[in-house]
């Protein structure tokens, strides 16, 4: 049976959660239910612009009636286009194209206790995760950092729905409080930790967890933007099959260059999180920026994720 690879949805409602965060409720065009999803799932939205279609991914949740999908978008400054589009060009009743829900940030089924760490708009994947954990009666807690109560999206909802599970940290106001990595020292054995927030927070918490002796297996995180690469430099690639030589400019990814040259590498998340765009490397030194490959796989120097990782000098690819 043929199934379309995307879904058309109508914007049912738009709610302002904070001064910079809007929540969008999406419904099926003909009134049937949108596909179900597991905790931590996201959709890719296809935003039509004159310059081409913008693809942006957002975590999905559902705090209202069954069969709907909700996302929350923070207006980024500067916006790379996605959040500006959602905040300024989307109105109730509009029709948009989205992907089916996918999950690159699933909950561990082996964890004895789940600890969710959110900063700012990073709360969104945890809304669906907490719903799943509560439904399965699993042990969990949330640590959520925001500038203030006013800028803390879903504050009332979280307090009311999960009393006793939520800890908030507001960095501004009378009694400023910061969420620090030291809290990771106190989790009992069997805990899995999940991080979602700005790149700096993810880096800080993942490296602290590693330093405290957490196995990689117990640490989970999700990025929605590619890692920031300072001093990105161009590199060359040679394709083994054709002998073709191409160069990857500093401001483009290897995936972009391959696809522009007619090499149809499959891809999905484009932030180094899902492994879809992996390419085999025959020779050369790789700079890994992904969050998917294991340490052993990276050390083998035989594979890379073409959406974010780069080469030093020239790479020979098995393509």
């Amino acid at each position, binding site marked *: 049976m043929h199934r379309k690879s995307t879904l058309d949805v109508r914007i049912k409602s738009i709610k302002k959660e904070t001064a910079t965060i809007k929540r969008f409720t999406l419904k099926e065009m003909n009134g049937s239910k949108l596909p179900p999803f597991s905790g931590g799932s996201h959709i890719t939205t296809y935003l039509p612009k004159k310059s081409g279609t913008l693809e942006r991914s957002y975590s999905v949740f559902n705090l209202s009636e069954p069969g709907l999908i909700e996302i929350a978008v923070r207006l980024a400054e500067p916006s790379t286009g996605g959040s500006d589009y959602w905040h300024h060009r989307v109105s109730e009743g509009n029709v948009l194209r989205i992907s089916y829900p996918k999950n690159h940030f699933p909950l561990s089924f*082996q*964890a*004895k*206790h789940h600890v969710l760490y959110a900063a700012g708009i990073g709360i969104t994947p945890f809304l669906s995760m907490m719903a799943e954990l509560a439904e399965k009666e699993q042990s969990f807690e949330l640590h959520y950092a925001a500038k203030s109560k006013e800028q803390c999206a879903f504050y009332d909802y979280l307090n009311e729905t999960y009393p006793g599970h939520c800890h908030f940290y507001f960095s501004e106001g009378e009694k400023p409080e910061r969420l620090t990595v030291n809290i*990771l*020292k*106190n*989790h*009992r*054995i*069997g*805990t899995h930790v999940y991080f979602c927030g700005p790149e700096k927070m993810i880096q800080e918490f993942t490296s602290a*967890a*590693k*330093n*405290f*002796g*957490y*196995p*990689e*297996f*117990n640490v989970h995180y999700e990025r929605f933007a590619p890692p920031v690469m300072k001093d990105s430099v161009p590199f060359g690639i040679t394709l083994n099959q054709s002998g073709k030589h191409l160069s990857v400019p500093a401001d483009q990814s290897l995936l972009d260059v391959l696809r522009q040259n007619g090499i149809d590498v499959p891809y999905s998340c484009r932030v180094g999180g899902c492994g879809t765009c992996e390419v085999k490397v025959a020779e050369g030194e790789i700079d890994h920026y992904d969050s998917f490959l294991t340490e052993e796989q990276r050390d083998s120097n035989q594979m890379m994720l073409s959406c974010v990782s780069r080469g030093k000098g020239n790479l020979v690819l098995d393509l």
Partner: protein
Amino acid sequence: MNQDHLSLMEGKRKFLFCADSQGVRSLYILVSQAIDENAPFDFHIFQEESEESFVDEWISHQKMGTYLYISGAVDFVKRIQNKALKIGFTEHDFQSLPIGPAKKKLVCCTCHGESEVDVEPHITCAHCGLELEVSDHYSRRLDAYLGYVTIR
């Protein structure tokens, strides 16, 4: 999960060494390495099975970043492993070294009957008569290895 030798993991906050009288020797090198590295550790030697009731309380109070080593007789290692797994340790948080020959449970891929094997690479399934190859495909749920069809 069972190793043929143990190695001290780098970057852990604390080590737990757990042995019976047979396993003590194999942990001494690691303990002295932990002392050299100034790493915090607990070391418990269990002489009798009755003393093991303390294990649950001991390991359940541990924090993330703790790494457990178990060494001793096959049954001892299995008992402690099961306690550790129940509490939340995974194969990423411990190593174990059973001393002495260990019998493996083998599940026939055809009739699902169970057989016990020592070290032999092939056996005949006692239930259906198929010749089986002892694989290293381990099922934690069954606590058994998969016996494949032998292809000659």
